[in-house]
């Protein structure tokens, strides 16, 4: 079937079977491999993307469910020059990245949080990341990076 939606601010139309997940659609039909498959049951958050402003696990959505919606993946998170945006830059600066497999999902979770809560407390950041498992970092530097980004964005004109 033809599935039409907005992907990273651009309209897309893709022919795909109706019984695949959004994650498979992204990875195998659209060649966007930034979202990762960690568990396939919605527990780890490595496949997280933003759908109409909400963080969702793309392994739990069927591809046809995104018809007409707006999807943002890690490939759609970029600074004005096409490089890393401020949140991604802070992930680097604060040492929030180790093996990196959870990081695209973490950045999507961070962006989704900051859309709705521009100045979260550290506890609120932790609550927003609770659906994204990281086995390397102990989360602390990820929280640092999101907190720093919130402060910097608030100071922007």
């Amino acid at each position, binding site marked *: 079937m033809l599935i039409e939606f907005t992907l990273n601010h651009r309209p897309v139309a893709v022919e795909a079977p109706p019984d695949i997940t959004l994650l498979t659609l992204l990875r195998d039909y659209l060649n966007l491999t930034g979202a*990762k498959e960690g568990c396939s049951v919605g527990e780890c958050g490595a496949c997280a993307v933003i759908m109409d402003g909400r963080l969702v696990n793309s392994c739990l959505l069927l591809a046809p469910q995104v018809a007409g919606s707006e999807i943002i993946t890690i490939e759609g998170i970029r600074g004005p020059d096409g490089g890393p945006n401020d949140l991604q830059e802070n992930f680097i600066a604060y040492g929030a990245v180790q093996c*990196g497999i959870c990081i695209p999902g973490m950045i999507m979770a961070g962006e989704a949080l900051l859309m709705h809560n521009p100045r979260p407390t550290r506890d609120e950041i932790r609550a927003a990341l609770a659906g994204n498992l990281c086995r390397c970092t*102990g989360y602390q530097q990820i929280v640092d990076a999101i907190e720093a980004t919130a402060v910097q964005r608030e100071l922007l004109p």
Partner: protein
Amino acid sequence: MTTLTYIGKPARRVDALEKVLGTAKYIADRKLPGMLHARCLRSDVPHARILRLDATPALAVPGVRAVITSDDFFEHGLYGFPVKDKYMLAHQKVRYVGEAIAAVAADTPEAALAGVRAIICELEPLPGVFDMAHALDPDAPQVGPDRPDGKHPNFLDHLIVRKGDPLPVWEQCPVKLEEHYSVSPQEHAYIEPEGVLAVPTREGGVVVYAPNQSPFINQANLAMVLDLPPQRVRVIQPPVGGSFGGKDDIIYESSAQAAKLALITGRPVRMLFSREESLIASYKRDPMRMHIWLGADSDGTLRACKFEGLMDSGAYASESPFTAWRASIHAMGAYRYDACHVDITCVYTNNGYYGAFRGFGNTEVCAAIEQAIDEMAYKLGMDPIDFRLKNCLRLGDETVHGQVLTESVSLAECLTTVRRLSDWDRKRAEYAKQHAPSGVRRGIGVAALYHGTSLGAEGQDYAGATIAIEQDNSVDITSGLTDYGTGSRTVFTLIAAEELGVRPERIHMQRPDTDTAIESGPTVASRSTMLGGNAMRIAAMNLRQTLDYAAADLLGCELHQLVRAGEAYVGPSEEPVPWEEVVRHAREMGLALSAQGRWSAPRINWDHHAGRGTPYIAYHFGAQVAEVEVDMGTGRVRVVGLWAAHDPGKVIFPQGAYGQLYGGIAQGLGYALMEQVTFVEGYIQETNFESYLIPTSVDVPEIVGTFVEAPYSHGPYGAKNIAEPAMVPTAPAILNAIYHATGRRIRDLPANLERVLLGKDLSKGGSPRACKLGLGTA
């Protein structure tokens, strides 16, 4: 001491950019035209004889291109180190649920699964060994290989440490403790499941992209079981999505299976595990049962320690003999005793199989001994930190193994540091006044550790590195030690920058590749910074010397007259000459602009029969304090604070070192409270993250970490290790805090709700169903 420019200063992880952009290509992100998809037929019984295995029906399934069994490997694919007891695909018998029996390559994953289901495999179930305590019973079913020495076939190894005879001393001690402790298996739970991509080459060899820890070991195994010369086998490590000790043997097997299928079909073959397959088939941290006797004088002087440990290796040896050795060395903790015996016995069972995991034996024994030490402090009426300070190893002490500690000993400082940071004395006094039998109670506990650096007397300890200036004046470096998320590529980059006197941005740290790097032993045992760092330092120093000659020639001066201003060289004329100019001149002089570095650790010796010697060249020391809230109505434990002081010798890459510390603590928190692997009649019950729980961002508290740097003379800039020791003391610190809060000792890990509330597990039973669903055989 010269000032350091890059070492110990804020730095960017060299592979962070591609990871935050989502462009890093992990194994599951790599595909090639015409690539086939591979899948294994895996055993859904824990112990059986293979009566009949006919793989040919798989070939009749549309889309299936090849199928292999153990018959397709040289000597049936027998491999393993230090014990050669496992096959790349099961041969004659299966010994655990999830063991691979055959492998299929097909056009699609669906066709591969259909192919697996078409294979005719008749298994005759055999009685199994599911309790390590009965593995050595005379009538126990045989799990391990036949032994020529007359010992029980389920006996794997016995490791000892000997100083004097502790039991007579213990008998005479006025304060005695004798207790039993146990720890559960632990799953690595790397967020990236296993995978591999094998590409056949035109000359009959194979290139294998494998997220393994040690590509050279993989290469050697592949050459052996594929019967190929090693130069026809190239192993490249893509970005690895976490490992923690877990991506060795299981990836070597997948590599061999995919490589053989690629050689047969002439097409690229990729094998990816589901999470269920990962949890069922891969090895885990070994469970242990421990029996400890401690004796002390009434003034709090520790006198005697006897430690008996039983370690389950599961169906195969994997690394367990080495794990058991490291466990034996550290079992008594970082303390002085008049007499000490350690005995660790390692046995085969049919409960999956167990191998390397961060801490490697020390995590297991530390969970027990640091609780026992705490219990002794209470018996003596002493503060737990005071008791540890009174008995802990200090500079100049002789360990129970007979090793005199001559440098880089910092445990007392680590203990006093966490005491201060955590506000220990005030909280101990305040929480001791809580009387409420219900509601929420607070407690605070401590644990200390030491952890031998690198391999120690386990094996030959060496590493190599290369460095070369390219035509565009960038610098390429390689190491035979790999980075599976640890940050070692950044450590090596900073060391090369420091020694060569160039900016880190100029340096490109290549990905591990057996074609370009120097074999450096396994990437294990937190050895990268010390071993690989020393090798890189030597390589860069050698190249630096070449450039110094060129600079002196260019500037018309003596070597000793050269100084550096940033990257530039300055001679007596005081006119700086850009580094590029010096490199250009070196090329004109015909000098080689590349170098190698090799470093071997000082030789040490351990006498396995006497249980004495020098096990490691140096030790990491550390201490952690945990603060908990325990809900006395539900048994729920929340860790509300964690303070850690660790001595890695010298911090090279601060963000990386703190990341190791925080991440290790999170894994230790999971080990203490929630991570439980349950085998019921050989079937693992936890097959995905909804049942195997690991800490989330709300389970881990804000951590206050600090480094006490006691430089080690043989380490690069004094550096020792950090990765493993970070997690080792966390679990006992939390358990000791639970005791402080509740007065309840949880001597069996993890301290789940039932154990905290009732002091025992509620029987939940179990079934093979989750395994059969996960393996696709239900």
